[in-house]
């Protein structure tokens, strides 16, 4: 049976070239970068080189890049670390209703600790209005956190516009760029953000590596204390092989970013047109907004996304539901809710996220099997009368 992976927003495979680079830092160059002997020096080089590469990619000085275990740790560090550093100045945070749980749950934790949090809504296209962010700012606001591209819809937020309004008020600005990193040019000098989070495993490096950019001098307390790694901002022996992999993955992303964007955009268009031509009563979330070219969020009226996902899985296609039912919560997606997706579509969403390995043949196969799967689910459904 064909095996087609269309869940690249969940995670990506490690590219063979990336794995090749990695292996060396498990086998030969396994030293601790803090060691002064030759084993340590050899690994220090790759940590520094990767830092330079990521800094270059983001338009930042190398000293502003910090490595962590991934995006969740980066988001936790920035939200909790700014709140801790500025506790005397204010205790109000502003974020959006469509953030990743790594931001939303951290905000909920900070709220338990006495902070107040304002959750700015999005419009029907899934876009945050910069003026709504500005209106939410108070004299107590210490940090604004808005994601760069949404993981469920791929919708890109006007971060530069938001950052401009936020920084005018002397308030710090963070963007969780985990889904955008490596897919489009991200320049912190142009965005003018104070903090940016990124992750390795969304761009063909392994799970367990990521990091953040912090504007030099920006107030931040570390989450982890210990051996003073990462200039004291993230103690713990560096994940050298992961850092090496991240460096290689970034170089590969930079080498063909535009071509890959255009190639995936063509596949996205084919997929979305194909679905709309063949299947009645579908809805594409965020399709009118600036969007990542790899993400399609499509909802089918009268059916449940998890059942569609399961049927697709049985026929070799792996993707995610656009709802959260399978992840333990019964509630539909908070992102689709925030966008005001009509009730009939709210439970029937799928997220297809394409990647480097996705081919036109993969998309054609999905278009071949999906109409029958939706029809089958609708035949079972009391909520769909054709």
């Amino acid at each position, binding site marked *: 049976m064909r095996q087609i992976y269309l869940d690249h927003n969940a995670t990506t495979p490690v590219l063979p070239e990336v794995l090749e680079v990695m292996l060396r830092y498990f086998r030969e160059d396994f030293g601790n970068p803090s060691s002064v002997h030759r084993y340590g020096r050899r690994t220090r080089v790759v940590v520094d080189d990767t830092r330079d590469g990521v800094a270059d990619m983001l338009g930042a000085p190398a000293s502003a890049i910090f490595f962590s275990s991934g995006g969740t740790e980066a988001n936790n560090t920035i939200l909790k670390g700014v709140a801790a550093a500025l506790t005397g100045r204010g205790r109000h945070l502003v974020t959006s209703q469509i953030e990743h749980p790594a931001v939303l749950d951290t905000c909920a934790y900070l709220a338990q600790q006495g902070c107040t949090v304002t959750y700015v809504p999005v419009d029907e296209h899934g876009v945050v209005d910069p003026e709504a962010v500005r209106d939410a700012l108070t004299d107590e606001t210490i940090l604004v956190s808005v994601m760069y591209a949404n993981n469920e819809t791929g919708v890109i937020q006007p971060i530069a516009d938001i950052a401009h309004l936020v920084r005018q008020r002397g308030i710090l600005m963070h963007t969780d760029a985990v889904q955008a990193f490596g897919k489009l040019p991200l320049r912190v000098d142009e965005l003018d953000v104070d903090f940016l989070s990124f992750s390795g495993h969304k761009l063909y490096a392994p799970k367990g590596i990521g990091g953040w950019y912090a504007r030099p001098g920006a107030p931040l307390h570390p989450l982890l204390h210990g051996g003073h790694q990462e200039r004291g901002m993230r103690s713990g022996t560096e994940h050298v092989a992961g850092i090496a992999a991240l460096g290689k993955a970034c170089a590969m992303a930079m080498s063909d970013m535009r071509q890959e964007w255009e190639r995936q955009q063509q596949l996205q268009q084919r997929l979305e047109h194909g679905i709309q031509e063949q299947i009645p009563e579908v809805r594409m979330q965020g399709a009118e907004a600036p969007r990542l070219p790899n993400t399609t969020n499509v909802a089918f009226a009268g059916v449940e996304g998890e059942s569609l996902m399961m049927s697709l899985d049985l026929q070799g296609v792996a993707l995610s539901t656009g709802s959260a039912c399978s992840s333990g919560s019964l509630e539909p997606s908070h992102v689709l809710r925030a966008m005001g997706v009509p009730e009939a579509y709210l439970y029937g969403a799928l997220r297809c996220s394409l990647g480097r390995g996705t081919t036109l043949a993969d998309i054609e196969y999905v278009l071949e099997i999906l109409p029958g799967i939706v029809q089958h689910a609708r035949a*079972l*459904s009391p909520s769909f009368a054709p």
Partner: protein
Amino acid sequence: MQYSDIVQEHFDHPRNVGVIEQADAAAQVSNPACGDIMHLYLRIENDRITEAKFKTMGCPAAIAAGSVTTELLIGHSIEEALQLTRAEVNTALGGLTPQKVHTSVLAEDAVRAALKKYRQR
């Protein structure tokens, strides 16, 4: 998310899908939290369920629960059907994960609601 082979099998080949026109007993129940909806239709002759059909909008577990419930009902008396519990539905499906137990609750609710209305006719 883990499903038993039985859930998987019922999801792939659901039994007794559909609507009974002029059913002797019927119910429509829903779980507003997750959006699951189940319709159940029963044909009853001499106090015994002779035919059962269902339609479900929901996850694979909800569809399997509807399917297996129709099988558990057919051939049984109303008294027996009223004794059907979510635990029996759950067992018949080979055990649902805690996250999915609510689908067996929905099935039990559908049976109770249909038979209650039948008795009140």
